[in-house]
């Protein structure tokens, strides 16, 4: 692939690029999170790179690292046929402040992809016009693709939303209905006492 892209970005943003590699033919740049939007804007508008498509935007959770998450974007240029992978490391070990700038003003595909990233990992995209969950329902608790979210976790039953005439809707009452959805599998191991519990 073209290492020229990596050189181009390094030349124009020498302090924004933290690492770079081209393993297996995929050119990759690790950027400082604060310069995320700047570099993307440059890559989109610069005629040498001409990245007109954001093909993929996702995140990966590395619970042993600090910062914990890595936001990964894949850019592609239809005219020139070259690709670039951009990464930015965000988030603290507990997964509390995980923030990065949005790219919705640059590419419209970022809209839904950032919503999915937020839904699955809890990454907040600053400036996103409509950051809400997309693949799960609004009352979902937690962020499923994080490594500390157990795959067999049972979500609490959702309270009926504010509907008029709710009692005319079956099952009639919150306690009725089928019981098989309410079993829990594992004991909750929340506090540090759990190992000697």
């Amino acid at each position, binding site marked *: 692939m073209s290492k020229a892209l990596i050189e181009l970005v390094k030349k124009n943003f020498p302090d924004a690029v933290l690492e770079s590699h081209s*393993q*297996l033919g995929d050119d990759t740049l690790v950027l400082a999170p604060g310069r995320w939007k700047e570099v993307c804007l440059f890559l989109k508008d610069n005629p040498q790179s001409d990245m007109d*498509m954001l*093909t993929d935007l996702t995140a990966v959770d590395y619970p042993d690292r600090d910062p914990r998450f890595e936001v990964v974007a*894949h850019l592609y240029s239809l005219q020139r*046929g070259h690709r670039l*992978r951009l990464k930015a490391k965000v988030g603290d070990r507990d997964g509390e402040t995980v923030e990065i700038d949005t790219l919705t003003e640059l590419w419209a595909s970022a809209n839904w992809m950032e919503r999915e990233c937020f839904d*699955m990992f809890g990454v907040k995209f600053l400036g996103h016009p409509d950051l809400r969950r*997309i693949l799960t329902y609004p009352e979902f608790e937690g962020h499923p693709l994080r490594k500390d*979210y157990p795959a067999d976790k049972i979500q609490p039953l959702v309270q009926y939303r504010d509907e008029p005439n709710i009692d005319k809707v079956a099952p009639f009452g919150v306690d009725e209905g089928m019981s098989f959805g309410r079993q829990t599998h594992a004991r909750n191991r929340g506090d540090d006492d759990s190992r000697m519990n």
Partner: protein
Amino acid sequence: MEPLDQELESSELELPTEPMLLNVGPAHPAMHGTVRIVMELSGEIIERCDVQVGYLHRGFEKMCERGNWSQVFPYVDRCNYVSPMLNNVGFALACEKLLGITVPERCQWYRMILGELARMSDHLTCDGAMAMELGAFTPFLWMIKGREMVWEIMEEETGARLTHSFGRVGGMAAPPTDGFKEHTRAVVQHILTIIDEVERLLLGNRIFLDRLENVGVISAADAVSLGWTGPCLRATGIPYDVRKAHPYLKYGEVDFDVPVGTTSDSYDRFMVRLAEMRQSARIIEQCLERMADKGPVNVDDPRVVLPPKEEVYGSIEGTIQHFKIIMEGLKLPAGEVYSYTEGGNGELGFYLVSDGSGTPHRVRIRPPCFLITAGLERVITGQMMADVVPSFGSLNMIGGECDR
């Protein structure tokens, strides 16, 4: 009821004037599975709409992290479930890119043939369903008959009609059967006849054309910004096909054209798919000619491929190889890779992150129709309610791929 012979001023009529909120709920025959569109209608025109997906979210990416690399194949099968072979091949290629191995030639041709057959079945379903939703039931049934024939080949080869999980890292699960070539040639001929008949039935029909032409238009710039790929992007005039732009397997050695649309409406998307089926038939014919009748289908690396059963039962090395691969799983080296192929809907990408153990750290499936459905809002806003049906149908949103 006001008497009909009286002239009424429009101001005397009590008509509501605020937009109506209509919920085209997830359980709806035109919603291709499970998409919910909440729209604000002013009369028939859609003023605003909110497309809500996720009703078929099964948590594949999380599930992949709990098993081996080989156990991901059933999951990717169920992504784009109308063309599962393309998903299998895409994922196998991604793993092989990470491993740095190339499958033998015979396997490459085999993968291409099965992939193109899957693409034909995908387009048959999409175009057939589009026709049916507009009221043309006969072409739908003919195209489904064609799809049945493709599924019969799949059943012969892989054992299952739809979710076959046939791809493996380093090859395929089994070599082609003896009757494969004749069977495929016969089926492809038959499908080409079906396509001809469907064209004769539909393309002269006034109603069909009126419902599709200039309906669901999106500009090329919008499509690119939205990340559209595949037939939907090609209908806008941009000739981007991963098979031509970045050839993989043996696509660089076969001749085929990439049909491109002009007006980027639903009619163009319909026609692009129809034309692509003919091109797929061309590719299949060339591959069938060039595929050897004998030879290995799997790469010869004991770290990756299971040994034949006689060796597993007869020799200790075969047993150990079988044991290590099954019990500990394939060990892909640590690293990350992004590998992309042309799926039924566009660029199907796999971003794999491996930590060197047999368990995937992250399997990201880049779903082409997720981004296409993101554009649905832009496509149907300003159109009439009834135009949603052919527009949405022409986008070919597959719930399994969109939501995973």
